[in-house]
Each structure stands twice: as C-alpha cells, then as structure tokens.
C-alpha cells in the first residue's frame, strides 16, 4: 500500500507534483440539450489521498459533475484539472487512465461476456497484452476480493459481487482518482460491509457520491454538499452531519436513530 502523497503514479505527461491537487474544478457550467442548467459554476479542490463524500439531493448535479471529471461531458464554461492535467480533447486518453469512474448501475459497466474479460478491457485499451495483462487482471480482482469470480458471467453475480467487479474493472487501469456514484445503493448489509472494507483499504484519492450518510461518515473525513449545480457546503463530515439546518435546507436527513457524534470515523 503506498502512502497517500508520494509521486508513485508518474504519468507520461509529467507526473503531478506532491502539491498538485488530485482534482481541481473551477467555475464549471453545463447545460443539457433540453436547456436544463445542471452545473451553475461549481468549484471543488481535492488533494491527493483525500476521501471526499459528495452529498446532495437528487438532481443536484453530482452525477453530471462526475462525468466531467473524465471528459465524457464537455463543459460550457470553466475547467477541470486532474493532477494538473487539463481535461480537454487531446489528453482524454490520459485523463481516462487517471480517473476511474464507477457508475451507479454496475450492469452498465460490465458489458463483456465474463468478469475476466471485463476487468481486462481497460488495461487492454491502454496497450497491455499477454502475461502483463493477466497480471493486471489478477491484481485488480485481488484488490476487491473477487479472485474466484474471474470466469463468471456478470448477470449471474449478486449485487455486491457486481459492484466489486465493477470497481475492479476500474482499478485495473491503476487510476489516480476513484469516483464512485452511489456505491452502496441496492446492496444488502453484507455487500455493503465488503465494499466499505475494500474502499477503506485503497490508498487512492476518492470522491464518493452517496445518499448513505453513515457510509459517508465511516469512509470520508470530508464532505461537500452540492445543490442547484454548485457547492453549497464543504466541511468535515462530522461537522456537516451535525448541522441540522444545513442538512434540512438541502433535503438531507440522517437515518432514524443515527447519531454522528456517537461514532468515531476513520481518518
């Protein structure tokens, strides 16, 4: 496990220095073809190795933002930098190597006939072949505890297994930043526990979009609330989850009986 912060992921485009933020979003604006303004000037900075939860009501623009981080959405205005690299046409391949995006619906991400082929898809696109490719697949499957699922078909997996395999498909590209969209939705408690353990053990910068507030508290020391297409709150998770007025204003609510003050979150 590498310590967060070392320049261990030097890329061909001049590796990011120790103080370069992992993710830097400035003044991002974006509207959909039907005219709806999804992002209205969003700023966000995430440093290397940080884990940040993105909270907010449905329709706030969180998923839209995630799609900007790897260049799938093209902004109307503003910039996104990943490890200092500007997200733009000529550098998209490198950006997509650096940012690993795990989608909400694991089925959308597992499109190959077997788990092994799905996990191999990303690194194969990066040029790996043969033994190197196999080794990378093994590494990614081991990281999520799915070694035994290599030859299985995606639609015969349980929800939790699918989620972990989807994560493996992304980890296989050795990203610098992991972006997860609602990773615990639809999981049973055991599946959720497995996922939390896996993510907690990864020393990568993580942005986690979630409605699962206890999960956010357990995994992410820092939380950001996004509403109406911009960041409206940015603080330590414990502080945010105890600010009742803020939560209420943005349609957030703690689960019944859950007291964030009674829990010691991970660092």
């Amino acid at each position, binding site marked *: 496990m590498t310590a967060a912060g070392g320049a261990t992921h030097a890329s061909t485009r001049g590796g990011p220095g120790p103080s370069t933020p992992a993710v830097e979003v400035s003044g991002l604006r974006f509207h959909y*073809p039907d005219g709806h303004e999804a992002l209205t000037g969003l700023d966000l900075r995430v440093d290397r190795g940080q884990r940040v939860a993105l909270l907010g009501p449905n329709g706030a623009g969180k998923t839209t933002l995630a*799609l900007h981080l790897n*260049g*799938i*959405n*093209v902004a109307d205005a503003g910039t996104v930098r990943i490890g200092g690299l500007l997200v733009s*046409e000529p*550098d*998209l391949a490198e950006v997509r190597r650096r940012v690993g995006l795990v989608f909400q619906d694991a089925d959308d991400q597992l*499109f190959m006939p077997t788990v092994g082929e799905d996990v191999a898809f990303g690194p194969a696109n990066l040029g790996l072949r043969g033994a190197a490719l196999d080794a990378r697949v093994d590494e990614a499957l081991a990281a999520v505890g799915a070694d035994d699922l290599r030859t299985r078909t995606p639609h015969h997996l349980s929800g939790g297994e699918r989620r972990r395999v989807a994560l493996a498909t992304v980890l296989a590209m050795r990203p610098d930043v992991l972006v997860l969209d609602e990773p615990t939705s639809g999981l049973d408690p055991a599946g959720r526990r497995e996922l939390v353990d896996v993510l907690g053990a990864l020393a990568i910068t993580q942005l986690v979009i979630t409605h699962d507030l206890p999960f956010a508290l357990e995994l992410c020391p820092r939380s950001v609330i996004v509403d109406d297409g911009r960041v409206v709150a940015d603080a330590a998770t414990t502080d945010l989850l105890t600010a009742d007025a803020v939560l209420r204003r943005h349609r957030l609510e703690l689960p019944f009986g859950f007291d964030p003050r009674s829990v010691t979150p991970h660092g």
Partner: protein
Amino acid sequence: MHAPDGFLNAGTAVTTGVLSMGAVGASLRHMRTALADRQVPLAGLAAAFIFAAQMFNFPVAAGTTGHLLGGALAAILLGPATGAVVVTVVVVVQALAFADGGLTALGYNVLNMAIVTAFGGYGIFVLLRRVLPDDATGVVAATGLAAGLSVPLSAAAFAVEWLFGASAPVPFDTVFGAMVGVHLLIGVGEGLISAVAVGAVLAARPDLVYGARDLDRAQLTTRRRVGMRPFVIGAVLVALLFAAVVSQFAAPDPDGLERVAEDQGFITSAEDHVLASGPFADYATAGLRNESVSLAVAGVTGVVISLLVGLGIVTVVRDRGGRRSPDADRERRTAGTA
C-alpha cells in the same frame, strides 16, 4: 418465418446470401459513419430490445397471441441501415444459439426478415410520410401502415424466392396466395403494435425516432387521439379484403380471371410454356394454370419489393451528406474519443 435448411435450393440460398451480405456490409459502413464509436453499444442494446420484444407476445383474438417481427419498427426508430443490421444480428444469433432457422437458410432468412422488412418497410414509410400530415400523428400512422405492410412484403419476397428455388412441387401461385394472404392479417398486429410503440417513444424522447427527425417541437406535440377498436376493426377488414383478393390467386381451380382471359384470347392453353426454360424452379412453375399471369404477378412483386427496398437504401445514402441527425446535437455536448 425462420425457414429451416433445405427449404430452398442451393442456388437460391447462395444468391440471397450474397444479396444479404452486400446489404449488411453497406449498412455497416453507413453505421460507422453515422454512429462512430457509439455503434457497438447502441446497436447491441437495440438488438437486445428487438430480441426481447420478439420473445413476448401480444393478444390477437380470444386469447390467441402473436409476436412482433420488428424490422420496420427498428428501421423507423434507428434508421434503416442500423435497423437492418440489428435485426440481422438477431436472426443470425437465433439460428446459431437457438437452432431457430437453418444455417444454410440464413441467406434468405436475413434477406426476408431483416433487409426487406427494414429497407422495404422504411421505403413504404417514406412514401406515406409524403402524403400524411407532418406531425406526430402522421408519423405514427405511417409507422402503422409501413410496419403492417412490411410483413406481407416479406412473405411476398419469400414467394418470389420460391419461384426460383422451390424444393417441392407447390406452385408459385399457391405459395404466394397463401403466404401473402396470411401475412396480411398477421401484419395488422405488427402494424398496430409498432405504431403505438413509436407513439410512446415520440411522446418521451422524440430525438430517438429516426423517422421523425425532421419534425420540430410544434409538429411533435400535435396529436390526434384515435380509438383503438375502430382502427383494429378497420385494419382487419381491409386486410381481409386484400387477403381475399390475393388468395384467389392461390385457389387450385381455374377462376373467373383465367376464363375471361381465355375467352378474350389473351392466352391459349396449349402454347409453348413461357417458363419451360429459364432460371425458375420446375416445381414452382409446375402446375401453374396460368403462366402469364403468374409470371406477371411474380415480376410485379419483385419489382415492387426492389423499388421499396431501393427507396429505403436511397434515403439512407442521401441522408449521410445532408440532414443533420439528432445525434449531432448530442455530440456537441459529450465528447467521444480524442
């Protein structure tokens, strides 16, 4: 309509195979230009949709059910080239993975179920759109008629192929009359389901209907509610009327038409057979009471099918240079590959 092996002779199997491969090849080239790196996931999911839609049945009458073919529907939603490729993939996988349709019959199965229905159905759609109003209702009506007619069109294509490659002594007339007659009725269900389905897509995501890409917002919101029951009854009556006319052709005994023709001296019964030497299968021509009429019907059918399919192809080719597709709008918002 998934014909098994040996249904038509080898020559026909090979010829239709070559035609199908050509059409599919050309369609793939168009798809690559139109969809670029989106072609695999979009066509793949569309193929899954068509396959699933074919699996599920819809009620026809008193508990009996029917199944969708989907060729014209695919063409109107995705464009005829993509539609043809999508249905081709469905038909081929059905043959390989489910033993539905012979492997040596793929040439004519693909031609009839994918190429003729997609391109021919789209050709009919284009013609109808010229005469029907330029709004959502017009598109829905055109879809219904085009999809409904694509089914007997497909059957007619099979009958023409039978003329060349029959493997049994059933005359062309009988095959034509029976197949087209029955499929005119089957087409009613296909037409209705396709029309309502396209209507539903138009209401929610009009940008996903290739056949309506020229309509603007105002035209899209113009809808006239049509009752289902009178529509179905009307369509069935019309189909029955046509079927009755067509199936006369298949009747084994000479009918009024031939008697009239003999009396008027158009044909004589003891002339040298027109079809004696030629590429036609002996079987299909054996027992034809009236060769001239049969040949004329076959000829007209062949020409009509070719024209409609050609029209479908032409609109696709023309579109590549000209009109902007709704996808172009989306491309400005999302970046593809570097």
